[in-house]
C-alpha cells in the first residue's frame, strides 16, 4: 500500500506542477496578484507531495518490500540498513525521483525567500521551475516508475545493490551532485524570467548570484566526492579518468564557474548581461545533457544503470525543448537587455572576460571529446575512443592560462587601470614565482635531471603566482586603513565576499599543488608477492604478510596484510581486501590507504596467483594527492563565505528603488 501511496503522491505532484507552470505566469502578465501568489503555496505543496513519495520509496527499501520491482533489483535482506536507505538512489528510477525531490526542494527554498523579490519576478521564476518539474515528473511516471510491482509472484529476496555502491561515498555523492546540477535550474529560471520580463538590472543579478553560488558549491563538493570515491573504491589509485560520466559533471561546473564570474560583472558593472543569461541557459542545459548521457544508456559505465532507449529518446526530446525554447526566447529578447558601458582594456572586466572565454572553451573541448565518439558511431564512421591524453593535452594548458589570468584579474580594479601599473605590481611576483617553480623541482626530486618536469615547474610557479598576487591584493586593499588603525582592524573591514573570493582562489592553488605533485611524482608498482616478501618503493618498504579469509555481513573477504616501513621503522599495517558479495557473486577490490597530508600509501590486492599463497599486489606512493580534494573544500568554503555577505540579504530588502551606483562596495569587489 505504501508504494501505491507514493505513486499517487507523484501523480498529484504532477498536477500541481502543471498548475504552477501556467497560473502564476499568466498572473504575472495580467497583473493579477492573487494568481502570482499561488506560486508560493503550489511550490510548497509540490515539495510536500514529492517528499512524501520519496519517503514511501525509502520505506519500501527499509521494510524489504521485494514486491516492488525497483527494490527487488537494488536491495537485499542482508544489506546493512544505511545502505538500504542509500540504495533508494542507487538505481535509475530512484535517483530520478531524488532529482525531482531536490528540484522541488530548491523551489520551496526560492518560494521561502521570494518575499524579497518583486511579485512578477518570483511568480515567473517559480513558474519556469514548475515547467522543468513537469518534464521530469512525466519522465519519472511514464518511463521510470520506481513503484512498479512484480505481482503476483514477488521474488523472495532482492538482487542486491551493486557492491561498488555499498560505500559511504555513495550515500553522499549523488545527493551533493544533484544539489549542484539541479541548483543551476534556479539560475536558469531567473534567466528565463529576466528574458520574459525584458528587464535585467543590478538587483536581478544580486538576487540570482547567491543561488548560483550555492549550486556551484554543491556541484564542487559533489564532483570532488565522486573523485575521492573513485580513488579509494575502484582500486586503481586514479582520481580522475576523463570518463564520459565524469565529463558530464565537469562541463556544467566549468560553465557554472564562468557564470558565477560573469554574474559578478553584471552585478557590479551592469555589463555582460546577455552573456550572463546565455551562460545560465548553457549551464542548466549541460546539466540536462549530463543527465541524458548518463541515463540514456548511450554511455556505459558504473553510472549508467538501466539501458532503455525509450528513456534516452524522452530526455533527448526534453533537452531539445528546453534548449530550443530558451535559446529562441534569448534570440527574441536579448537585445532588450543589452548594456552600453565602456571599460578600459586593463580592467577587471577584461580579465573576467578572459576567464569566461577560457572556461567556456575548455568546457567545449571536453564536450567535443565526450561527444565525438558518439557522433562518429551514430554516423557509422567507425568506433573510436578518445583517451585521457587528449583531455590532458587540451585541458591542462587552458587551466594554466586561466590560473595565470587569475593573478592579473585579482589585482586589477573595475572599470579602469593601466598596463604600466599592472606590470609594476607583478614583475617581482612573476620572477619569484618562476624561480620558485624551478626551485621546487630542484629540491623535491632526488635527481634534477630525472625529475625535471616542465608541466610541474609551470604548475608550481602558478601556485606561487596565485598566492603572491592574492597577498599583494590584500596589502593593496588594506593600505589606507592599515595606516590609520593597524593591520588587524584593516583586515576586519574587508567584506566576506572579498574573503570568499580569495579563499576559493586559494582552493584552486591547493588543488593545483595536489594535481601537479601527485601526477608528476607518484610511484607505483604492480608485482607478484609471496607471503614474507619485502619490496622497496621510494623510501618505503612493504612486507606482504599473506591473506586470510574473513566473513562480512553480506560478503566474504580475502583479507590481506601488508606492513609498511619507512627507513626501517614500522609506520602502518594495511589491510587491502578482495571481497566477493554473496548475492551477485561479484568480486570487488577494497584498497587500503595510509593517508597523510604530504603522501598517501595505497595498497590494493590484485588476484591470487598459484598455490603458495602469492598474490598480485598494487602498491602506490601518492604524494600530496589529498590536496586535490582539500582544494575543492576551500573552493566550496569560499563560496559559502561569499554568500554570507550582508549585501545579499539587507540591500535586497531595500528594493529596486534604492538602486545604488555601481562599485560602491569599497574594497569588497568580489
Amino acid at each position, binding site marked *: 500500500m505504501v508504494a501505491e501511496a507514493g505513486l499517487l503522491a507523484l501523480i498529484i505532484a504532477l498536477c500541481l506542477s502543471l498548475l504552477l507552470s501556467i497560473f502564476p505566469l499568466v498572473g504575472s502578465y495580467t497583473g493579477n496578484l492573487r494568481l502570482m501568489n499561488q506560486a508560493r503555496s503550489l511550490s510548497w505543496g509540490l515539495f510536500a507531495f514529492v517528499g512524501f513519495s520519496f519517503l514511501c520509496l525509502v520505506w519500501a527499501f527499509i521494510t524489504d518490500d521485494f514486491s516492488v520491482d525497483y527494490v527487488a533489483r537494488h536491495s537485499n535482506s542482508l544489506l546493512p540498513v544505511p545502505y538500504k536507505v542509500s540504495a533508494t538512489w542507487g538505481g535509475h528510477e530512484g535517483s530520478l525521483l531524488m532529482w525531482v525531490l531536490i528540484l522541488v526542494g530548491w523551489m520551496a527554498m526560492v518560494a521561502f525567500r521570494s518575499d524579497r523579490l518583486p511579485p512578477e519576478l518570483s511568480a515567473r521564476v517559480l513558474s519556469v521551475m514548475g515547467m522543468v518539474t513537469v518534464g521530469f515528473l512525466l519522465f519519472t511516471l511514464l518511463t521510470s516508475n520506481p513503484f512498479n510491482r512484480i505481482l503476483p509472484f514477488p521474488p523472495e529476496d532482492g538482487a542486491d545493490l551493486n557492491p561498488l555502491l555499498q560505500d559511504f561515498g555513495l550515500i553522499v555523492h549523488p545527493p551533493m551532485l544533484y544539489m549542484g546540477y539541479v541548483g543551476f535550474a534556479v539560475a536558469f529560471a531567473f534567466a528565463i524570467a529576466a528574458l520574459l520580463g525584458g528587464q535585467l538590472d543590478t538587483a536581478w543579478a544580486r538576487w540570482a548570484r547567491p543561488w548560483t553560488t550555492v549550486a556551484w558549491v554543491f556541484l564542487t563538493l559533489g564532483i570532488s566526492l565522486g573523485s575521492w570515491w573513485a580513488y579509494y573504491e575502484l582500486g586503481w589509485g586514479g582520481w580522475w579518468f576523463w570518463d564520459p560520466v565524469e565529463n558530464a559533471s565537469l562541463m556544467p561546473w566549468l560553465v557554472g564557474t564562468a557564470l558565477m564570474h560573469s554574474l559578478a560583472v553584471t552585478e557590479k558593472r551592469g555589463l555582460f548581461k546577455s552573456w550572463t543569461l546565455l551562460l545560465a541557459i548553457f549551464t542548466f542545459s549541460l546539466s540536462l545533457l549530463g543527465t541524458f548521457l548518463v541515463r540514456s544508456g548511450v554511455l*556505459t559505465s558504473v553510472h549508467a544503470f538501466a539501458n532503455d532507449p525509450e528513456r534516452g529518446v524522452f530526455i533527448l526530446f526534453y533537452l531539445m525543448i528546453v534548449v530550443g525554447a530558451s535559446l529562441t526566447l534569448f534570440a527574441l529578447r536579448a537585445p532588450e537587455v543589452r548594456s552600453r558601458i565602456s571599460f*578600459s582594456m586593463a580592467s577587471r572586466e577584461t580579465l573576467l572576460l*578572459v576567464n569566461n572565454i577560457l572556461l567556456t572553451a575548455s568546457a567545449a573541448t571536453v564536450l*567535443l571529446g565526450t561527444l565525438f565518439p558518439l557522433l562518429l558511431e551514430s554516423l557509422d564512421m567507425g568506433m573510436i575512443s578518445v583517451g585521457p591524453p587528449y583531455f590532458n593535452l587540451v585541458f591542462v594548458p*587552458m587551466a594554466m592560462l586561466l590560473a595565470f589570468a587569475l593573478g592579473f584579474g585579482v589585482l586589477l580594479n573595475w572599470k579602469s587601470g593601466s598596463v604600466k601599473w599592472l606590470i609594476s605590481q607583478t614583475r617581482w611576483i612573476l620572477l619569484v614565482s618562476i624561480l620558485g617553480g624551478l626551485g621546487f623541482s630542484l629540491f623535491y626530486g632526488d635527481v634534477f635531471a630525472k625529475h625535471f618536469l616542465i608541466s610541474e615547474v609551470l604548475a608550481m610557479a602558478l601556485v606561487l603566482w596565485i598566492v603572491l598576487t592574492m597577498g599583494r591584493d590584500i596589502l593593496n586593499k588594506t593600505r589606507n586603513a592599515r595606516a590609520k588603525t593597524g593591520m588587524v582592524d584593516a583586515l576586519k573591514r574587508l567584506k566576506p565576499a572579498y574573503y570568499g573570493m580569495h579563499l576559493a582562489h586559494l582552493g584552486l592553488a591547493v588543488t593545483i599543488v595536489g594535481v601537479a605533485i601527485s601526477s608528476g611524482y607518484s610511484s607505483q608498482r604492480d608485482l607478484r608477492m609471496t607471503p614474507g616478501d619485502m619490496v622497496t618503493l621510494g623510501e618505503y618498504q612493504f612486507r606482504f604478510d599473506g591473506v586470510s579469509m574473513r566473513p562480512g555481513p553480506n560478503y566474504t573477504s580475502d583479507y590481506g596484510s601488508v606492513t609498511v616501513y619507512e627507513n626501517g621503522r614500522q609506520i602502518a599495517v594495511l589491510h587491502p581486501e578482495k571481497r566477493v558479495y554473496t548475492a551477485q557473486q561479484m568480486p570487488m577490490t577494497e584498497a587500503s590507504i595510509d593517508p597523510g597530508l604530504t603522501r598517501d600509501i595505497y595498497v590494493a590486492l590484485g588476484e591470487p*596467483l598459484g598455490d603458495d599463497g602469492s598474490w598480485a599486489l598494487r602498491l602506490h606512493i601518492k604524494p600530496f594527492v589529498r590536496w586535490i580534494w582539500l582544494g575543492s573544500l576551500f573552493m566550496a568554503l569560499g563560496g559559502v563565505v561569499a554568500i554570507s555577505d550582508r549585501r545579499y540579504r539587507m540591500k535586497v530588502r531595500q528594493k529596486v528603488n534604492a538602486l545604488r551606483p555601481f562599485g560602491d562596495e569599497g574594497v569588497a569587489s568580489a
Partner: protein
Amino acid sequence: MNAVRKQRLILVLLLLAGVGLAVALMLFALRENINHYFSPAQMAAGEAPVAQRMRGGGLVVPGSVERDSESLKVSFRITDGAGEVTVHYEGILPDLFVEGSGVVALGTLGSDGVFAATEVLAKHDENYMPPEVQKAIDEAHPKPGYARPAAQTTVQRELRSLQDGS
C-alpha cells in the same frame, strides 16, 4: 577608430585568439589520441594496422588464460565468434576479468599477430557487455539461430547468459 570600436575590436580579436588556440589544440590532440576499435576477426585477417595504438575487444576464450609463474605476465585469447587473437599483458587484471566474459584491451598489434595490451578493461557490472564487443559479435552472426556451426554456439550461449545476467 574611436575608443569604443577599438575596444570592441580588441575583444573580438581576443575571442578569436582563444577560440583559435582551443581549436588548434583540440585538432592536434584528437589526431594523436583517437583509438580505433578493431575486432578479433579483423586482427586475425590482417585488416588491422600493425604497431599502431588501438582498442581490441571480445570474449575471453575459456581455458585460454595462461599465467607466468614468476611475474604478472599473462596471456589469453579473445574472440568475437569469427576470429581469435592472442593478447599479452603484464599487470593486474580487473576484478571482473572472467573467462567467457567481455573485455576491451588497449595496445598495439605486433607483426606476429599478437596483441600487446597496456591496459585491460572489464566493466563494473557482470551484465555489462562492451558495446564494441557486442557489435562485433552481432556482425559475426548476422542471423542468430540460423544454421549455427557448432564452434559458434558456445560463444552465443555464453553471450546469451551474459545478457540474461545469469
